[in-house]
């Protein structure tokens, strides 16, 4: 490779930053495209049946009313024009008024979003706190009783529908034992049951991934090198190996967040948690389409942002990704 000159070193340092910047730029661009795609789908929801008025008005509506509505909403214009108009409004945060509540859809979402994020974050935290150590321990004590127990737990966790678990939790802990409230958002105690119900499904997947990731890492040559150099077992497992195993976990966490957002819809329904999910179910049943559109759009945006953050975190943790392109 030759002896690097001063200038050479400088270019190398800058090069690292530049390629990182390029990567970030690329990911941002991708995210924008994805959001555009989402907007197309959200827009399309309303037009699926060909005539949105059928969804927005009761069946017995008169011809008069239908025509008026069409004119009001500009439904006679070409589709692409409607889309552009929709996009324009959406980018300014204007999703129209919720039919049922008669307030801007976006404001309703902002009121309820914190509750959902709180629940999802709590669920994910519960899942991580339980699953990661379980996965690590299962990997360390492979084929032991603990490992078997974990696999059984994992299997059950994956097979249980989240709402059934929720109902069971309510039955046992709220009705029979009366330790936690059965519904509503009222202090930390009320967060426990819904968070556990929501987290359980992710718990299983995360534990599995951690276990198999750790097993794979522990079999690697560099772990052998660390042991050969006399590093303490504790350090090898938790500092050395875990960092390697955690990296793919980071992307998984991002995806799990999306899955949990979906699961939150049901969990909120069962536990009467005042979040976006419950709002969404309510909106769909009351045919409040502007609200539905807004909810899907916002949730998708949150998901995309979270995944973008996870991806960037990933590159920070794993130096190979960004630099793989810039040098041989």
């Amino acid at each position, binding site marked *: *490779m030759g*002896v*690097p000159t001063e200038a050479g*070193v400088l270019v190398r340092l800058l090069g690292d930053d530049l390629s990182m910047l390029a990567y970030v730029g690329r990911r941002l661009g991708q995210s924008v495209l994805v959001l555009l795609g989402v907007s197309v789908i959200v827009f399309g929801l309303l037009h699926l049946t060909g005539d949105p008025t059928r969804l927005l008005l009761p069946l017995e509506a008169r011809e008069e009313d239908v025509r008026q509505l069409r004119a009001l909403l500009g439904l006679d214009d070409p589709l692409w024009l409607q889309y552009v108009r929709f996009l324009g409004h959406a980018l300014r945060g204007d999703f129209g008024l919720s039919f049922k509540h008669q307030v801007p859809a976006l404001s309703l979402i902002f009121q309820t979003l914190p509750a959902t994020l709180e629940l999802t974050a709590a669920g994910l935290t519960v899942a991580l706190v339980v699953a990661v150590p379980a996965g690590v321990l299962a990997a360390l004590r492979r084929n032991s009783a603990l490992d078997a127990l974990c696999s059984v737990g994992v299997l059950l966790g994956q097979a249980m529908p989240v709402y059934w678990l929720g109902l069971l939790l309510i039955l046992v802990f709220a009705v029979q034992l009366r330790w936690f409230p059965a519904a509503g958002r009222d202090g930390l105690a009320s967060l426990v049951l819904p968070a556990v119900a929501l987290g359980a499904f992710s718990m299983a997947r995360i534990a599995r991934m951690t276990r198999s990731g750790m097993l794979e890492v522990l*079999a*690697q*040559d*560099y772990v*052998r*090198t*660390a*042991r*050969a*150099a*006399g*590093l*303490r*077992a504790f*350090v090898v497992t938790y*500092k*050395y190996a875990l*960092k*390697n195993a955690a*990296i793919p976990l980071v992307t998984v966490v991002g995806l799990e967040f999306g899955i949990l957002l979906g699961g939150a819809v049901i969990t909120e329904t069962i536990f009467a948690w005042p979040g976006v999910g419950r709002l969404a179910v309510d909106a769909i049943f009351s045919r409040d389409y502007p609200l539905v559109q807004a909810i899907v759009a916002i949730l998708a945006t949150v998901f995309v942002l979270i995944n973008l953050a996870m991806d960037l975190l990933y590159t920070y*943790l*794993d*130096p*190979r990704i960004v*630099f*793989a392109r810039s*040098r041989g």
Partner: protein
Amino acid sequence: MPPLLAVERLQTHFPTSQGVLRAVDGVSFTLERGEVLGLVGESGCGKSVTSLSIMRLVPPPGRIAAGRVLFEGENLLAKDDEAMRRVRGARIAMVFQEPMTSLNPVFSIGDQIAAAVLAHAGGGRRAAWEHGVAMLDRVQVPSPRQRARDFPHQLSGGLRQRAMIALALASGPAVLIADEPTTALDVTIQAQILDLLRRLQAERGMAVLLITHDLGVVAELCHRVAVIYAGRIVEIAPVRSLFARPLHPYTRGLLQCLPHPSRFGRPLTTIEGVPPDLRQLDAGCRFAPRCAHAIASCRATEPALEESEPGHFVACPVLG
């Protein structure tokens, strides 16, 4: 004066679904202070497993079944885990074959060397890092201070191997086990690394156990050589002696396989047959099926290592 390292009748076995695989089946040799002992054999003959056994790093389900490994008079196999940990790296260190996979990709090499230092010495991160930089300098890595911040994938093969060596020597061990240190490298780089090893060995008076299948490397670096076949040592001799007067049929076969200018134009020789299945070993000499000089007693009893000439041991009653 007792040898620095003495391996006595070491046996390491791997249970498989088709029987116990006796990778190392009664290996004995000694390593003196300041000497370079080569351990030669083809792939799968048990040389790597021997070295891993000395370090007690045999991957499960393998286990060391019998024997002793005496280091400075103490049996390493009898030590508890913590005591063994203190030996690894600080007293006996190991360099592996594949520098790409043997270094952790998500930590800088400086971090990894510093971690090795901190495993045995106190002194804090700063001091450990500085020591790491100094070590990189000793192994002739250019611009060691900047390089220490690099990650393994940013270095060429030769530099990575140098980093591995720096990591191994960081705590000043008395013995270095080098498992095929140059096999994965380009030929020109090989020469450089061998040079480096020779220099470091002379500087520090280190004992080196050099594991290789390459007789050329042996000729360059080693004082003594042990030839291993199918989990047993078949010949041990000073290097000149071995090359000049190879006694065991297997050793002779190995040397004949080397291309030589005197045999230019003629087809290359090979040793007929294949090594035995280590799970189902027959009685008698393991090389007998492939040996042109085998007699009836060869297939009946396992030959022992006998001193045929001063310092030259061979396990062959026919030619030894």
